[in-house]
């Protein structure tokens, strides 16, 4: 699957299927700090992502206060 990462924007390819929480763990990303979006729709932690999916992992932490 193609995975789009942000800050800075870049793309990586992951072989095989994954559940969302497993993909985040593999990329060393926290669930609390990210949303996972498939084709413009949010997906929860147990959703299974297919080989052909395009996934955006969007960070949600911003630095201003």
């Amino acid at each position, binding site marked *: 699957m193609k995975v789009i*990462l*942000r*800050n*800075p*924007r*870049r793309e990586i390819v992951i072989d095989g299927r994954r559940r969302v929480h497993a993909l985040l763990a593999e990329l060393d990303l*926290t*669930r*609390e*700090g*990210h*949303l996972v*979006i498939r084709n*413009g*729709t*949010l*997906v*929860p*932690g*147990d*959703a299974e992502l297919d080989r052909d999916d395009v996934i955006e992992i*969007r*960070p*949600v*932490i*911003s*630095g*201003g*206060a």
Partner: protein
Amino acid sequence: MKCRTCREPAIIDLPRHNANFCAEHFLQLCRRQVAKAIHDHEMFTASDRILVAVSGGKDSLAVWDLLVDLGYRADGLYIALGIGEYSDESRGYAERFAAERGLVLNVVSLREEYGYDVPTAAKATGRVPCSACGMSKRHLFDKAALDGGYDVVVTGHNLDDEAAVLFGNALRWDVEYLARQLPVLPARHGFPRKVKPLIRLTEREMAAWCVVRGIDYIIEECPMAVGNRHLGYKEALNALEEKSPGTKASYYLGFLDRMAPLLAELAATGADSVRPCARCGAATGVADEHAVDGEIVCAFCRLVERSAAHAPVSVDLVRKKSRAERRATMEVEAR
């Protein structure tokens, strides 16, 4: 995963609620949390004129959207900070959001109206960029609210923001800041009322609100904020949250419930010690020992004088590279 409310497929899991929600019931949860914050802290009423501090990021656009959705009258104010392409893009998101919904967005440009921008102010004053930025925004939001006859200024500070600030203040035991870290700062002596309706919602929930509602916002992090202490506090709190969901809410909302009342007397001190700035007339708490040629001059006017006299400074001269950027560079170099 099924929605806790309707058993339809969920789109988001919220471990702190030990629940999952579909889009409709997630939005309902967010509306209820904002309505509760407004009600419990008596932030404003339906007849108040509201000015929303808008950055083009998820939190400010989400809070503006939520207030309008809940039936409040709210205009926006965007401050063009002059942080290179980041500011140009964020302004575009704010303007498109307002235009698509027929909302009023006022714009103030630091460079055009005051002769400086944030990178230049950071260099000219020796402040960290976030400090120069925050001071500029506070002054200009106060001014716009008072000049425009607004009853209240709304900011998009969320639960993560407040928990991180609380964490930093507690690490330093800065009791004066702790005493003032409240969701409502009452109007006083030349300052408008300021409120934070998102204190019961996390950053992740606000980003999700924007995705579900189809709100485009600037996703990229402000280049000036990279590596700041506040981000480090958020990462630390999120590490705790992963292991123990609900930690951030119990920490900050517990502070409001049980600790802030003990600091109320301290929060009230200093409220009467403000005077008008000799240059702009705004209320300021500047002490006599910081007078300029015998005059009381507010911190904003002093910042403007130093920054506007300085040659413009580019973003790249004052920014740090993020860990993710360094990692991305390493990934590219390794290929």
